[in-house]
């Protein structure tokens, strides 16, 4: 432990988190003085955006900071941008939503900002306890956000479930940390590099950590909470959940691989099994859903499964950070990006079409949508097709890179399982499209005419849709960035 006090560079490296937190504070305190919703929207927007922008600063001062607790590098930069962007979009979506549902804006944005900060910490943490704190920041805020519609039974219930199970899993995670600490004498990832892979204690500890994170990324059989929470939570929050925390948790997992070889030794088969289970559970579960939020929840489970396939590919490469694993990393990163885009977009539309109190979230409410609101239907179809993995969408490339990674590390059967699953998946995504384009709406559905989309929401839809197509046609910039050799700073 060097004895120098933290210098400026250290603070640059965590600038995004700081900015997010500060703006969170601002939002908290301002609520006492300002009533206007627009003010808080603007504040949150600026805050999230500023924080996201600040990750440039962090990137330019790459390196590890705060005595090796955090590291800022291309990898963390990517994830900061990702979670930041998600936060920005969610702010825009929430603006209209909170207004419609008559919910206090200040706390919402504050929590959102803190949650984002927590994810940021996860993305750049180099030390398990810091990671734990970050995790808790995002989780606890998430619990509250899930229950943000206090008067709604579903919302509060989802908060409770998320909270209880979440902290249950956290306990496992923490226990894992304890054991790892016990066996290696440290919680700083880099210092574990030399840890003896044979140690039983380490094995158990890593297993526990995997359990904790597996819960966060909703890998089967830890996925149980996902559908309920996603359905109950306010839809913008759902959008956040599906994109943000998941990405952050995956980021931490990748970090661990990259720096702790022992992990790759122990985790390969675990990931193989988790991936297979998760894909099937997600897709099969989604087939029978009639509530669109729930359906998307299951689909996000399935996608977690696909990402886990890439993880299996990463782990099957003996040395986590080594060259041949790079494409697998790239696959994960690209997939998370595309996935965030389409999921946020889809949930945005769902939240807007939901109407006051989120009444219209069943598939039947989407019948004949293409007649009532052709553009919306088209946009939603874009996201769905991208989720389905059709070419010229980002989703396709994501899937493609994962296939590539899997085949590349000889996981042929996993690839085949994934193929089968994408067929199952295509079935229910098509079902939604079919409903929108090919089914006649029932009388009362036809009665409630087109829902008007406020500017902010349109902005989100536009951004996500364009992004989905753009990265589907021109993935080069992203790919080139995430394929850089010094992705994780070594």
């Amino acid at each position, binding site marked *: 432990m060097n004895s120098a006090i933290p210098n400026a560079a250290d603070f640059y490296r965590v600038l995004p988190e700081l900015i997010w937190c500060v703006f969170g504070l601002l939002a908290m305190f301002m609520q006492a003085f300002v009533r206007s919703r627009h003010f808080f929207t603007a504040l949150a927007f600026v805050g999230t955006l500023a924080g996201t922008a600040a990750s440039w600063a962090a990137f330019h001062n790459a390196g590890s900071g705060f005595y090796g607790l955090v590291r800022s590098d291309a990898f963390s930069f990517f994830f900061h941008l990702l979670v930041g962007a998600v936060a920005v979009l969610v702010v825009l979506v929430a603006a209209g939503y909170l207004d419609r549902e008559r919910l206090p804006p200040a706390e919402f944005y504050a929590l959102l900002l803190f949650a984002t900060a927590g994810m940021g910490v996860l993305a750049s943490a180099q030390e398990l306890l810091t990671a734990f704190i970050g995790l808790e920041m995002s989780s606890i805020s998430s619990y509250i956000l899930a229950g943000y519609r206090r008067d709604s039974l579903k919302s509060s219930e989802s908060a*409770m*479930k998320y909270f*209880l*199970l979440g902290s*249950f*899993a956290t306990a*496992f995670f923490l226990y894992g940390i304890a054991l790892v600490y016990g066996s290696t004498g440290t919680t700083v990832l880099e210092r574990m590099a030399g840890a003896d*892979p044979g140690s039983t204690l380490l*094995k*158990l500890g*890593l*297993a*526990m950590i*995997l*359990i904790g994170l*597996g*819960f966060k990324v909703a*890998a*089967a*059989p*830890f996925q*149980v*909470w996902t*559908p*309920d929470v996603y359905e109950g939570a306010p839809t913008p929050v759902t959008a956040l959940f599906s994109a943000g925390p998941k990405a952050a948790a995956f980021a931490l997992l990748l970090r661990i691989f990259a720096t702790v070889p022992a992990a790759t*030794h*122990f*985790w*390969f*088969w*675990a990931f*193989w*099994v*988790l991936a297979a289970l998760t894909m099937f*559970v997600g897709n*099969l*579960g*989604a*087939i*029978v*859903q009639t509530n669109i939020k729930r359906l998307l929840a299951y689909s996000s489970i399935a996608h977690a499964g696909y990402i886990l396939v890439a993880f299996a590919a990463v*782990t*099957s*490469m*003996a040395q986590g950070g080594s060259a041949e694993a790079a494409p697998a990393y790239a696959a994960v990163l690209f997939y998370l990006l595309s996935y965030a885009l389409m999921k946020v977009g889809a949930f945005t539309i769902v939240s807007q079409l939901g109407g006051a109190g989120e009444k219209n979230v069943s598939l039947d409410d989407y019948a004949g949508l293409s007649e009532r609101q052709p553009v919306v239907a088209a946009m939603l179809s874009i996201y769905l097709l991208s989720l389905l993995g059709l070419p010229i969408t980002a989703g396709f490339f994501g899937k493609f890179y994962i296939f590539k990674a899997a085949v590349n590390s*000889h*996981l*042929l*059967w*996993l690839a085949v399982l994934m193929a089968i699953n994408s067929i*199952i998946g295509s*079935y229910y995504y098509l079902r939604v499209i079919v409903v929108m384009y090919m089914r006649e709406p029932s009388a009362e559905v036809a009665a409630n005419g087109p829902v008007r989309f406020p500017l902010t929401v349109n902005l989100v839809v536009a951004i996500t849709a364009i992004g989905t197509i753009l990265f589907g046609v021109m993935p080069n910039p992203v790919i080139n960035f995430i394929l850089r050799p010094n992705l994780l700073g070594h």
Partner: protein
Amino acid sequence: MPTYPMLEYLWIIPLLPLLGSAVNGIFGAKWPNKIVNWVAIGSTGLSFLGALEAVREFFESGQALVHKEFFTWIAAGNFRAGFDLQMDQLTVVMVLVVTGVGWLIHIYATGYMAHEGGYYRFFSYLNLFMFFMLILVLAANYALLFVGWEGVGLSSYLLIGFYFLRKSAADAGKKAFIVNRIGDFGFMLGMFLLFRTFHTLDFVTLFNTVAKLNWQPEAWGQFGTFTVAGLLLFMGACGKSAQLPLYVWLPDAMEGPTPVSALIHAATMVTAGVYVVTRSHILFTHSETALVVVGTVGCATAFFAATIGLAQTDIKKVLAYSTVSQLGYMFLACGVGAFGAGIFHLMTHAFFKALLFLAAGSVIHAIGGEQDMRKMGGLGKKIKYTYSTMLIATLAIAGAPLFAGFFSKDAILYAAYVREGGMHPLYFVGLFTALLTSFYMFRLIFLTFHGKPRYDEKKVHVHESPWNMLGPLVVLAVLSIFGGWFALPAFFDKPDIFAEFLKPVFGGAEAAGEAAAHPSELVFAIIAVATALLGFLTAFWLYLRQPGKAESIAKSLGGLYTTVLNKYYVDEIYAALVVKPLLWVSTNVLWKTVDVAGIDGAVNGIAEGATAIGDGLRHTQSGNTRSYAVWVVIGAIVIIAVIFFWPSAGKPVLGMVR
């Protein structure tokens, strides 16, 4: 201007009818019958003249085989099928018969069809037929021949089904086409085999290859290229020329207008099979087996059809079966290697059978559409011309001396007898068939023209046909008398012009049959005449002397008679054995079971299975936090179990293939 313009532009001959057909087909609907007539008759007539001119030039050019390549029709790899026409002696005969008889029948049809609807349609089809038939006989390779082959099938389909409002007609047309297709199946395979062996379908090249490279003939029971190819081609011929077992379509084909029956189902198309066999005689002469099969099938058909002919009461049906029987004769000739005789009979038969049909048509026309001979009788006095011409034709077919049929049939029977290699049974069967032939023909004559009228004379007032119908009758009558004198048997010690003429085509092949101009041929001639006479007398006795005797005999025969009357129930048997089972299997097994229940069922089953599993899964999602906790515990156990107990977990895994 080339020296032999017509040979140079041989394609004009078939093209003219095609044009006529097209013009009539497209514009005819709006035109009055007169113009349609002119187009139809004009086009065929011109192509007849063209044919004559071509033949003249052919002789003038010293009978050298003419082979013209006009354009390549299909080409792929080493395969080329050109639109090539050729003209040799055999072609000459066929072309003249086709165009000549065809033209006459066109003329006849203008009268016969005068009062029918769809007049233009009829002539358009008829011309189309002429086109394809000419292609068939002029073609210089099997592929192009096949064009004509299928084409005539098409036109006969159209013409048989001309009265498409009548289901029977439509059925008959369909039947004709499909049965022919069955034959074509063989024909195609034959072609493929030939191409596989010789890498060409061009007559000249192919036959020269066989001749030049002195291929050994195949002995009895040896299934080499020649045998198999020959039999396959013969299968096609059976379909086209209505031989056993594929003859069934021809009698039904009588649903078509009578001129059609005359032109297509008597004079020309049905003889295409014979033409193909003679055209590819070299294949057959190289295969004992093939020859025997051809001869036997022909002979059997001849007899079989004749027996059915005995009992028919529909005037056209009688003629139809007689056609089948006569075609049998022709194949018999080919079978015994007397290809020349076969062609010769083909020609004469074209004359008198066409005449018979036309006359029959004239009768039907006269009596107002009645075809049942039991409702005729005593017409002889009312329609003299028709009667006399038909009588001539009957004499010809029955083989009365000096009539056309006499010479041709005689030649065949003689050839059958002298052919070495145990062909005598064929001769005797043929002879007996001759007896039957003359019997049922005279039966027809007597029932129709003699005795007292059995139709209601008040309703029907019988009238002679117009001259545009009688004209052709007369011409054909003349031909049926003198047409046979081209090939005088040896005992006339005059040169056998016909055989001489065809020799370049058949060459040595003929030797077997025509070689020894044997005085004993006279004996055979006398025997033949005697049998014919016997047949005549029987008919005379049964149907003029003792009317009603026939019925009693029929009754005494009982089952046998009804069987014959019902054509041995062949159609019924086919229906029961082939058609119905096929439909049943297709519907209930293939479609309903395999397709819908089986494959589709499986596919939908998978889908439903997935849904069911999904439904099961979502019920683990009980909504109860405690069970969720248990799931988390399960997950924990799974992970720990995998990490600790999975085989090969924890070992370095680089390069492991899963």
